[in-house]
């Protein structure tokens, strides 16, 4: 069984006035790990259930392996599914749970046993086969749910936040296991989560959703490096990207209440602008932009430092240093590549053709140095 492609076209689902899924189109490539990512209530589960056939689409179509399955029942869609709650049958033991589908489909007993042995070994369930779900830990239950999906040997596997009930350590282990399993079996995986770290670490392709629409679809790298919207920029990364409002005077873009020019307009720009820069792209430098330290969160190796620049706040991820202390003024520097610009109203990313980031060290600093009043030292 190798994966097959899933394609959604202008897919829509509404309940009364609620638009849960608002005309989305995407492709989950064959054999790839696709993650649906978004905040609570954005329509991820609904999208997954539309693919599974557990909900009827209000409009639009779903194609699996090139065939329109929009009107077909779940069992004709070549899918297996792992539910968030696992949906294990409480009265059946592990073996019976895993074999449920094969029995329903009248697979011969000899073949059932052979497949069960293989799946149980693969998932490390061999000595738990007699147990009831209530006698298993969360991680074991999760593996049983996975086993039920794997044994079906369907080319598509759908998962709705399967790891959200597990503790941090187990979650990490299961992420690695799941990813390895998907690769090994060549499944087309569609995986729902609201945890961006999980999405980035597992996905071949991430589809970021918000309010029933797709904000951006792309590889984790592309989404991290080139967020298409301010929403994506804010949603991906811990801590999230700093988005600071800019004011414009002629060609110069500044933070209100602070002197340094951070960017220059080169073409037509909207009035409301948001400058985006990731906390990890900020560095201490003698030649940087001066900012006031307001709070420090110690993370061990790194610290998250909340700073004030004019009227705006930004967070920097800095290595532990003596001079970084609350109330002090420090100087931050970044590379021009790390700067993103978004339309403050629509949230859309603004093309580099219309603006240029200004290297803080070279142009403004010398002029600045005279004006800055250093904090107590």
């Amino acid at each position, binding site marked *: 069984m190798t994966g097959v492609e899933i394609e959604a076209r202008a897919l829509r689902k509404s309940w009364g006035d609620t638009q849960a899924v608002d005309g989305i189109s995407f492709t989950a490539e064959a054999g790839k790990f696709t993650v649906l990512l978004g905040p609570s209530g954005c329509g991820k589960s609904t999208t997954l259930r539309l693919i*599974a056939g*557990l909900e009827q689409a209000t409009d639009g179509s779903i194609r699996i392996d090139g065939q329109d399955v929009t009107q077909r*029942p*779940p*069992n004709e869609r070549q*899918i*297996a*599914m792992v*539910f968030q*709650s696992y*949906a294990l*049958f*409480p*009265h059946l033991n592990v073996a019976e749970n895993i074999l*449920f*589908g094969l*029995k*329903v*489909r009248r697979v011969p007993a000899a073949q059932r046993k052979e497949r069960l042995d293989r799946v149980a070994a693969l998932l490390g369930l061999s000595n738990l086969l007699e147990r*009831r779900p*209530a006698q298993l830990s969360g991680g074991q239950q999760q593996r049983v749910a996975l086993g*039920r999906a794997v044994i*079906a040997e369907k080319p598509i596997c759908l998962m709705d936040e399967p790891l959200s009930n597990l503790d941090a350590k187990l979650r990490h282990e299961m992420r690695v296991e799941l990813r390895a399993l998907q690769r090994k079996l060549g499944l087309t995986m569609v995986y729902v989560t609201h945890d961006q770290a999980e999405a980035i670490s597992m996905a071949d392709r991430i589809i970021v959703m918000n309010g029933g629409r797709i904000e951006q679809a792309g590889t984790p790298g592309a989404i991290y490096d080139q967020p298409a919207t301010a929403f994506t920029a804010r949603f991906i990364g811990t801590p999230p990207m700093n988005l600071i409002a800019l004011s414009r005077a002629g060609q110069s873009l500044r933070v209100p209440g602070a002197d340094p020019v951070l960017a220059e307009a080169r073409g037509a720009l909207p009035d409301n602008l948001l400058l985006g820069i990731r906390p990890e792209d900020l560095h201490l430098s003698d030649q940087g932009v001066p900012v006031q330290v307001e709070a420090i969160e110690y993370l061990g190796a790194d610290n998250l430092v909340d700073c004030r620049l004019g009227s705006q706040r930004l967070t920097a991820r800095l290595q532990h240093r003596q001079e970084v202390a609350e109330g002090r003024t420090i100087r931050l520097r970044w590379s021009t590549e790390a700067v993103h610009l978004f339309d403050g109203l629509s949230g859309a990313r603004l093309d580099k053709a219309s603006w240029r980031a200004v290297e803080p060290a070279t142009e403004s600093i010398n002029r600045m140095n005279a004006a800055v009043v250093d904090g107590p030292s």
Partner: protein
Amino acid sequence: MLARREWIHGWLLLTPALILLFAFTHYPAVTTVWHSFFSTPRGQRPSTFVGLDNYDFLLADSTFWQVLSNNLWYALVTIPVSIALALMMALWVDGKLRGRGFVRMAYFAPTVLPLIAVANIWLFFYTPGFGLIDQVRGLFGLAEVNWLGNPDLVLGSVIVVAIWKEAGFFMIFYLAALQAISPSLREAASIEGAGRWTYFRRVTFPLLMPTTLFVSVNAVINSFRLVDHIFVMTEGGPDNASSLLLFYIYETAFQYWDTAYAATLTVVLLVLLSILAIGQFFLVDRRVHYR
């Protein structure tokens, strides 16, 4: 010393409950057994120990055997039919049904009504000639039937009333149990391609087993205990054709005032119920999955 004080306190705290339990449950039960070995005091003749005479009489009492067989038939029909009906109604009402709140209430109504009232309603249904049933039959040109006067029909007629009364009550338990089953189980099964019947047989029904056990124990007890409608509708007649064990005990004790024989009958009823209840728990319990 301290341990002893605690021990006394413990017993003191238990005493009120124990007194009530003994006075109203254990003592009557024991005296009933005791009385069944004595004759009934009549006028000048005091009660005397007669050993197993009462039981000998019981074995030879053809009315007892008829009443017992009535009761067994009554149980044999009401229990499975009312449970099956309750389950079907619950499955139906649990689904996506328009106006299901109303349907639920309608099904539950017979349970809320006292059995005496229920019996009066059915008395009207069964009235020969102008009762509801005969009126409907009349529309099709069928002859009138004396449902409660015919010894061949009367037991069936009271059985119908009992089922009507009990099914709605049991439905509530099934409905509660059904709603406790996570809908994602149905979805998981549908992804595996399980149809409605397979899902019912392999998932719903096994998960309802604790409820079925509970309901069936209740049904067994009720089939020996609920006789109110016999009083209103038939008084056990005609010719004991609709008399049940408990009704016969009542008649013996409070109409013929044969208290010793009534005690004997009561002992038989108690033994019968105990065997049934214990047997049910032991036999069925093993196959029931509890969450």
